């Protein structure tokens, strides 16, 4: 009649309906013994399933949440401190920390509010005795509250999931043509167009830091700098190998070719994230050899940077100021080194946890775009999207699907771990 119901109160209700009034205290179940119940059964199955959503947060969880709430209140108090108000950096960092817990605290407060109300309603139900009207009122109130608590708990679980520390960072994106010669270059250019549209539609800022154009169009490689809100959290799902199947513009006989382009997404980083030893770098400029200083007035400001341990080579030519080119080259180097670390760490994590999906390493084939069938297939999701949707840069839904999958999987893993 009302679908699945979970947990203590459900079983209590079911039993009460058939057996009679019983005190709630005899039904103090812990998380592990809760399972989704069919309202038609009157026995409690103590089996565990992979999609448990207990209605009662266990004591441990409640304690954790109370702790978070206490810290939140402390931070809130500090915002009223005149010393804090005087120091804008400190003020901002406190506000940022506080806002991270705000969602959790709001949900938790609501949950606890409902919990009290539920206790009240349960009492009413018991006291109602044989009055069917009173019993019905109390019961419907209890049901309502339980549903609300279940929803809040689901929210809380997601909010409490370990977050990717890089999620709120800006990124550098490198699109590199793979196999397929000119067509791969053109495809890299097509991806750039899509991403630019997407970035603009979100009100983010993009600038090209480096590019190497293809002879027949497109790019051999292009590096973008993207700034906005929670950029990495969305763009990380674009990292990997993208494959295109279509008749190239340069093709004279109408044959379909398959080409690839690789997208690398590098969260922005600073010296705290990645240390680069100046000894490991050779930076050469146009002036490194020969006369310089006041004797000449040349405007060639190109900078060539080589990171010896990894062999990463970066050339930066685009700014009028040589120092700006140097800074950009260093920024790119640090981003690349950091990304290598991030990808490695994630791969290790995934292996440890046996997780299925994750943000693609550079060699993971993530999507195929087929022109003939007008489809964009995401291999991680096992889902197809209309090609037109991708080309018009409506890629939000694809990323949403990836985020949902990721959350599902994290929830599953988290629950499994707690079952142990």
């Amino acid at each position: 009649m009302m679908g699945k119901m979970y947990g203590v109160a459900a079983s209590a209700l079911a039993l009460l309906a058939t057996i009679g009034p019983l005190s709630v205290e005899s039904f103090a179940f812990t998380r592990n013994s809760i399972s989704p119940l069919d309202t038609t059964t009157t026995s409690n199955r103590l089996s565990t399933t992979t999609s448990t959503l207990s209605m009662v947060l266990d004591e441990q969880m409640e304690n954790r949440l109370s702790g978070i709430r206490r810290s939140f209140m402390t931070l809130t108090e500090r915002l009223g401190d005149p010393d804090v108000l005087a120091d804008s950096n400190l003020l901002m960092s406190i506000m940022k920390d506080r806002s991270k817990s705000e969602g959790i605290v709001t949900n938790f407060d609501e949950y606890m509010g409902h919990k009290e109300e539920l206790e009240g309603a349960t009492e009413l139900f018991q006291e109602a005795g044989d009055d069917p009207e009173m019993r019905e009122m109390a019961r419907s109130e209890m049901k309502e509250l339980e549903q609300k608590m279940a929803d809040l708990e689901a929210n809380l679980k997601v909010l409490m999931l370990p977050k990717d520390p890089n999620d709120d960072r800006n990124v550098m994106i490198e699109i590199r043509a793979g196999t397929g010669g000119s067509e791969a270059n053109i495809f890299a250019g097509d991806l750039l167009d899509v991403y630019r549209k997407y970035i603009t539609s979100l009100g983010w800022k993009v600038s090209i830091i480096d590019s190497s154009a293809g002879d027949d169009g497109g790019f051999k490689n292009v590096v973008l700098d993207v700034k906005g809100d929670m950029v990495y959290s969305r763009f990380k799902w674009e990292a990997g190998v993208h494959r295109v199947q279509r008749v190239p513009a340069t093709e004279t006989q109408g044959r379909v070719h398959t080409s690839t382009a690789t997208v690398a997404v590098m969260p922005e980083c600073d010296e705290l994230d990645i240390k680069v030893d100046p000894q490991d770098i050779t930076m050469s400029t146009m002036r490194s050899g020969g006369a310089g200083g006041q004797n000449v007035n040349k405007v060639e400001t190109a900078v060539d940077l080589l990171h010896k341990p990894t062999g990463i080579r970066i050339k930066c030519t685009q700014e009028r100021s040589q120092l700006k080119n140097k800074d950009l080259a260093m920024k790119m180097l640090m981003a690349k080194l950091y990304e290598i670390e991030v990808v490695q760490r994630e791969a290790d994590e995934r292996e440890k946890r046996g997780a299925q999906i994750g943000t693609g390493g550079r060699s993971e084939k993530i999507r195929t775009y087929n022109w003939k069938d007008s489809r964009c297939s995401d291999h991680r999701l096992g889902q197809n999207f209309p090609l037109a949707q991708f080309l018009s840069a409506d890629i939000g839904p694809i990323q949403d699907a990836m985020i949902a999958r990721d959350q599902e999987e994290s929830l599953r893993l988290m629950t499994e771990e707690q079952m142990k």
Partner: protein
Amino acid sequence: YTSTSTSSANTDQTKDVVGVPEAELSACHLLAHVLQLPPSNGFSLLLELLHHPSSSHPLHDLPADARLTADQARHFQELCTRRASTLEPLQYLVQSWDFYNLENIKLRAPILCPRPETEELVDWVVQDLRRELGRYGGEEQPPLRLLDVGCGSGVIGLSLAKEFPHAEIVGIDSSEIAVELSTENAQLVLNTEHESATPRYQALHVPASHYTNVDANTHVQLPTDAPQERYRFGFHHVIANPPYIPPSDMKSLSPDVLHHEDHNALCGGVSADGLDIVREIVARLPEWTASEPQADADADTGDGIAADIY
């Protein structure tokens, strides 16, 4: 852009014949200026286009076959001619350039065009000052008075002023044009600040040798109540990119430098080693960095000099 890249290619060919240095770059900078592309990197977009005529345009949604207007074409032609015929420096043709943390600094003949090496000099000074000031943590920053000797367009002093918002900068130069130009640039760079009665940047028309409170005749410090104006020193650091080229090397400078930039900003004086100006600066250092007027030339603690000398 087909027409524009063709026109720049044509200009390139002409330039190569005459032997213009950095012909392609020159054409790109001049064309970017005429088309009013973003100053910092507009030229590199054109350079890409020149090398890869069929590439997609990375950022500017200008149509691929945009044509120059008649005015633009004329302007471009004029600039290219000036560049090709007399090797007029690009910075003078475009009338502005970038330096360190400054964008679109005004430049005009004959004031020396800032060099990349000077950016490095400023960076060293910035790192040093950051270390020094870092010791004070988040408390009130101590006062910081800096002297830019031979300030020219003002780039050294102004990039430091921008980097250290509480610093006071004085720039001195023997060229009146330099004093004017650096003052204009100061207004551009610092005009967003709430200026109190005394501006943070001040340019004075006085050569290093005369920037002193020591009476030239009596060789004694002017008394504090002297009728003549006395300078206020007390600088924590003195920074300079002084002229240092030996006179014998002057004639071998490349024509764009020799025929357009101020020789006084290049040649270090009559002595063979080209270090006359440097010597003048060093001689005045104790007076400039003393915290109180001193009759004798004791160097006080807190003086520092970074000079761009090769």
